[in-house]
């Protein structure tokens, strides 16, 4: 049982991709790599579950520790707890789905799949790292492919979006690095400064240092997960990105930030406590304001991107509330939002492939011509608006229950406002759904294409498989959340 396999497998896949010839080979290799990875992750999950009842109460399992760079005491130290394995599972699922959805990508397919695999590699490495430097390293590994994916395969103002996204995320990781370096130099451990999470947690960071460096690390990670004033890369980036990149971006990449914020809040509890008011204000603004901004969007991808801002606000709200339940809710929300938004983007991508428009006003009644895709769209929408039985509800209600445990009146007010967003969410989701899926059939973008005999076909096998995979995840959490909450606990 080795966690390094999680990194080695994508690496091997990436190398194999470089040796491939022709896009048919490339996609098969990429898919099989992702599927093997998914199987391995499931196996890992099984192994993890076997450890717990066996009385293994250690916080971190499957540790591996290698000295990487001795003079700075940087280690390759990996290990997982329940939160990490939940995120890894999410990554594996979204990766397989993303590769399936990009099945027909012919343009520079080798580079495309290479970058996708690289992005997933960065995410895996990030989630299993226990060394802050390795963590940061993998965070950076995950940033660069996004820039290229959007810049090269994107649509619309792709270079602008790619630039914006890369610059903001780079700025975020610069802040993260300042925070991490601050922790590194100010932790009194026996053998000098260390990046090791466990040792730092054991040694404890003094309150002054926490309060100085927590904002850096938190805002830095926060930018990745659409913290309020730094969220503007989300709509532009997502809307310009190709379908799979949107899925990866929202499904995996934004979760890097949430996971990082959570780790920082757990590592520096004193500072998290003193800054929690600010975090909650920003998170509440993101939730409400993101939701209202979504109502006015006319492009399907913008709708989902803004709703991501709103939904990721729940992650930050859960973290900022600092109660155990709320934090669990934050993790649930990360997993749930990852699956849901990936599904949503996949559905939008499928619609766009056929109709060549994403404007709500130009679409209508698609249930008639592509029932499968429309159903996927409806399921994603219902999950987004927090329908019980799908994962969104479980996550949101957990966040609310946890948030309500803070007795302060202002925290309560923030919680109520956050609750109110479920109504706004319902409004924008139903507006989009009512127009695009229901109503009279209308496809303006391809009026001419239709006349030329193009048929608006329903989903192909690869798209069906991708959607079904994600829906299984959503329903598995929504119908039986206990397995996931037990895992996270």
């Amino acid at each position, binding site marked *: 049982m080795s966690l390094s396999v999680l990194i080695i497998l994508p690496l091997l896949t990436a190398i194999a991709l470089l040796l491939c010839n022709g896009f048919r080979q490339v996609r098969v290799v990429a898919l099989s790599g992702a599927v093997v990875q998914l199987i391995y992750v499931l196996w890992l999950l099984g192994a993890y579950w076997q450890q717990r009842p066996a009385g293994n109460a250690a916080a971190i399992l499957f540790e591996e520790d290698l000295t990487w760079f001795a003079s700075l005491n940087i280690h390759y130290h990996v290990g997982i707890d329940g939160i990490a394995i939940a995120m890894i599972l999410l990554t594996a699922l979204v990766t397989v789905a993303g590769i399936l959805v990009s099945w027909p990508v012919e343009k520079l397919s080798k580079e495309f799949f290479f970058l996708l695999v690289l992005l997933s590699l960065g995410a895996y490495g990030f989630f299993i790292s226990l060394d802050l430097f390795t963590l940061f390293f993998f965070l950076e590994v995950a940033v660069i492919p996004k820039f290229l994916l959007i*810049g090269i395969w994107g649509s619309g103002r792709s270079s602008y979006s790619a630039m914006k996204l890369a610059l903001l995320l780079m700025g975020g990781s610069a802040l993260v690095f300042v925070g991490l370096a601050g922790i590194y130099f100010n932790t009194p451990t026996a053998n000098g400064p260390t990046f090791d999470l466990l040792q730092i947690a054991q040694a404890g960071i003094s309150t002054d240092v926490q309060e100085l460096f927590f904002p850096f690390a938190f805002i830095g990670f926060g930018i990745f997960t659409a913290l309020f004033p730094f969220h503007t890369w989300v709509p532009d980036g997502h809307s310009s990105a190709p379908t799979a990149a949107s899925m990866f971006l929202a499904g995996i990449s934004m979760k890097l930030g949430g996971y990082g914020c959570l780790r920082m809040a757990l590592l520096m509890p004193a500072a998290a406590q003193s800054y929690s008011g600010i975090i909650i204000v920003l998170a509440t603004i993101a939730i409400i304001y993101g939701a209202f901004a979504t109502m006015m969007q006319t492009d399907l991808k913008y709708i989902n991107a803004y709703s991501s801002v709103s939904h990721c606000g729940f992650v930050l709200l859960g973290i900022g509330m600092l109660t155990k339940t709320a934090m669990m809710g934050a993790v649930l929300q990360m997993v749930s939002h990852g699956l849901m938004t990936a599904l949503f983007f996949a559905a939008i991508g499928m619609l766009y*492939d056929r109709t*060549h428009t994403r404007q709500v006003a130009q679409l209508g009644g698609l249930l008639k011509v592509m029932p499968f895709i429309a159903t996927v769209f409806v399921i994603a929408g219902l999950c987004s608006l927090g329908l019980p039985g799908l994962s969104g509800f479980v996550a949101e209600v957990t966040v609310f229950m946890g948030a309500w445990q803070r007795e302060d009146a202002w925290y309560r007010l923030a919680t109520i406002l956050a609750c109110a967003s479920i109504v706004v969410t319902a409004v924008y989701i139903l507006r989009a759904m009512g127009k695009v899926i229901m109503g009279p059939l209308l496809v303006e973008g391809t009026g001419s294409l239709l006349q030329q005999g193009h048929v608006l076909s329903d989903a192909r096998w690869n798209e069906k498989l991708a959607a079904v995979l994600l829906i299984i995840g959503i329903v598995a959490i929504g119908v039986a959340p206990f397995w996931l909450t037990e895992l996270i606990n």
Partner: protein
Amino acid sequence: MNASDILFYLISAFVLGTAVLAVTANKIFRSAIWLLFSLVGVAALYFWMQVEFVAAVQIIVYVGGVVVLIIFSIFLTQQSGSKMPKPPLKRTLFFILAVLLGFAFSYKIIAEYGFASAGPVKPFVVPVSAIGEQMLDTKQHGFVLPFEVVSMLLLAAMIGCIVIAMRSVPKGKTIQKHTATVGGFGTSNNLTDVPAASTTPDEVSIMEEKAT
């Protein structure tokens, strides 16, 4: 002041005078000739300092090699007799002032420091054999490693010269004037070698449609 001293000042005056002429002469060919004299003067300075081997190398390499190379390149590139455009007066004045200032600054430093020359304790003799032995010596004060490095450098320079000077423009390709775009997305073109037009979404999706 003995004859040796006078000789030194004479040589110095010669070196500096010809150097000034070399950098101010109107015609490029003359400039090269003045440079030649100046370099010969430097060689004379080495003789005066009793390092005959260096002086000999100076004459062989500089006078016999570099200057000849320069003259060749003059012949290759333009009419040797034509006058070069004079630099604008403002520029000339500015640099004369700047150079004088720099010289004064250096002069001051050198004069202040003084280099306590108690006179040579030991006469400075440079036998060629000593140079040769030390050059190829592998022991502590040997220079064999720099020697080898320099020989590699010379080889590299030789090949490099040939490659640079011989590179001819391949047929069918015009030299692209590389216009760098600020903040633009040059990467996509470099990476892909695909015309930018094909990145429009419609074509991509049409391609995807065809693929299935």
